[in-house]
């Protein structure tokens, strides 16, 4: 099977992210592979181990390739970076068009990615790529079996009140959710090798795209700090008065019960 995994390097969840100005964030320089993308890489590798074929990791990023190196260290066969000055400040739809321009003439059976990236938390790129390529997609899968002969996938997807099973013809795109698998920890030796691995770098022109193809549909007008909660009110009475006070506060002050 030919499997492509769309990956993104994002600030570590512990990294400090603050509003610097209306149009700029201050982000601690601590990057890792978006957690859900790592699940997607693992899913791709597992299928390759079963059916043979090839796993390619793919990212759009002008500066970093951490997630590509992670993918290689985990066992991906190939890595591609798309970078172009015109992609500076691109929205998710522009990224989807860029990725699709690369993928459209590739012999893919399956495209995998995380259910959302852990920086913009948007979850747009996966389904939007599927739309551009005219293939079916399923969002947030927690189970995956592939019948390579029939070119069909059996998928389990999480919905609000339970789990739904679906069948889907291939090629298709699935976005991966925690629970699908536990991503492998690469061997140190493979991490070292991945640091030196060759990464193909492409720009928009080589994909037949111009700056007008990546004009945004949505734009960040302003960054704002999160709403601040007032300082905590500690209820210092002894038990059981503290419980009675809490109930009273929730009913009369917060008015939530």
């Amino acid at each position, binding site marked *: 099977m030919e499997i492509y995994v769309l990956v993104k390097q994002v600030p570590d969840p512990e990294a400090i992210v603050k509003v610097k100005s209306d149009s700029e964030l201050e982000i601690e320089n601590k990057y890792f592979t978006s957690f859900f993308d790592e699940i997607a890489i693992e899913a791709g590798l597992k299928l390759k181990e079963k059916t043979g074929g090839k796993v390619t990791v793919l990212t759009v990023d002008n500066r970093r390739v951490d997630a590509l190196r992670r993918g290689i260290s985990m066992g991906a066969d190939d890595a591609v970076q798309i970078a172009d000055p015109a992609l500076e400040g691109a929205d*998710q739809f522009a990224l989807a068009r860029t990725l699709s321009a690369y993928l459209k003439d590739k012999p893919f059976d399956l495209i995998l990615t995380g259910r959302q990236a852990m920086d913009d938390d948007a979850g747009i790129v996966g389904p939007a790529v599927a739309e551009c390529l005219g293939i*079916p997609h399923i969002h947030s899968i927690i189970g995956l079996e592939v019948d390579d002969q029939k070119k069909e996938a059996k998928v389990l997807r999480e919905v609000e009140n339970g789990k739904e099973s679906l069948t889907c013809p291939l090629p298709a795109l699935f976005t991966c959710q925690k629970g699908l698998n536990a991503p492998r920890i690469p061997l140190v030796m493979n991490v070292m090798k991945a640091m030196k691995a060759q990464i193909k770098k492409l720009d928009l022109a080589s994909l037949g795209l111009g700056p007008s193809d990546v004009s945004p549909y949505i734009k960040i007008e302003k960054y704002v700090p999160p709403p601040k909660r007032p300082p905590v009110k500690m209820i210092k009475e002894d038990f059981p008065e503290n419980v009675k006070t809490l*109930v009273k506060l929730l009913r009369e002050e917060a008015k939530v019960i």
Partner: protein
Amino acid sequence: MPNEIWVLAEHREGKVKKIAFELLSAGIEFSKKTGQEVAALLLGSGLEEAAKSLTLFADKIYVMDAPSFTPYTSDAYLASIASLIKEHQPSILLGGATSTGKDLFPRLAMHLQTGYAPDCTGLTMGEDGKLIARRPLFGGKVFAEMAFSEARPRMATVRNNAFLVNESPGKSAKIVPVSSQIDPSLLKKKVTGFEKAAGAKLDITEADIVVAAGRGIKAPENFKIIEDLADALNASVGTTRATVDEGWRDLKDQIGKSGKNISAKLYMAFGISGAIHHILGIGTCKTVVAVDTDPNALIFNYADYGIAGDLFQIVPALTEELKKVFSTE
């Protein structure tokens, strides 16, 4: 005639989800500034009850009745909604940040080549008709105010409790039946089964009240006291990554960065120290209560009310006190 504001009204077992009423209420507020009509979009089969419940909340209800809408797949929904949008050119399309919304909206936006703001916690409409969507980034460490390009409709999915349900919406909707001829070749995905989650509780992303325990609960069987409290409050039960990784609780109940973001009116955390992963998942809850034995636990920095105490003492007493208070009403 300015174009309409549309809300995709999701429903389950004949009942329209609360988020749809919240979004229609927002639409009604916007329409006071813009003079637009507000319309609900209802897809499924046997929709009379659902349509009836929406009557006061919209000027129009577009009803698309066809068996291929149940259960949801993006194949059937996308084709039908896209053609209706092309016909009526609505100005705005809103939906819940649900499993359906997150599956459908990004693809639909790409299809229509229009802007979509996902998982919003607020929307504001300017006097000039400019729509601004507010949404968390980096799990809620910062927020962004998003603007849309000239393309229409402007699309957004919104979390629960971002808007209050209007108590007197005062509309009287006209039902507009829409025939939906779906080309069977478009229906690629097939839903083959559904495993309903145990218990009758709402998903933690949908519940108004969520009570949760973390590692401080010490053993999986001790969740019984949390379940009892949840029953008294008609709440759902959440948890932390630690207990899920231990295999004590189901992944679907995990709150936080690698789990779910909840947006409850009341969130109560018992024996949860407040790791950043968890805190990021509760950022948009209205009122937060924390109970932990460690008075310096991080969770207290993010709570409105706190008790430094033993959850095994407090939770059962709280359940009893609530039962007592509610029974005298």
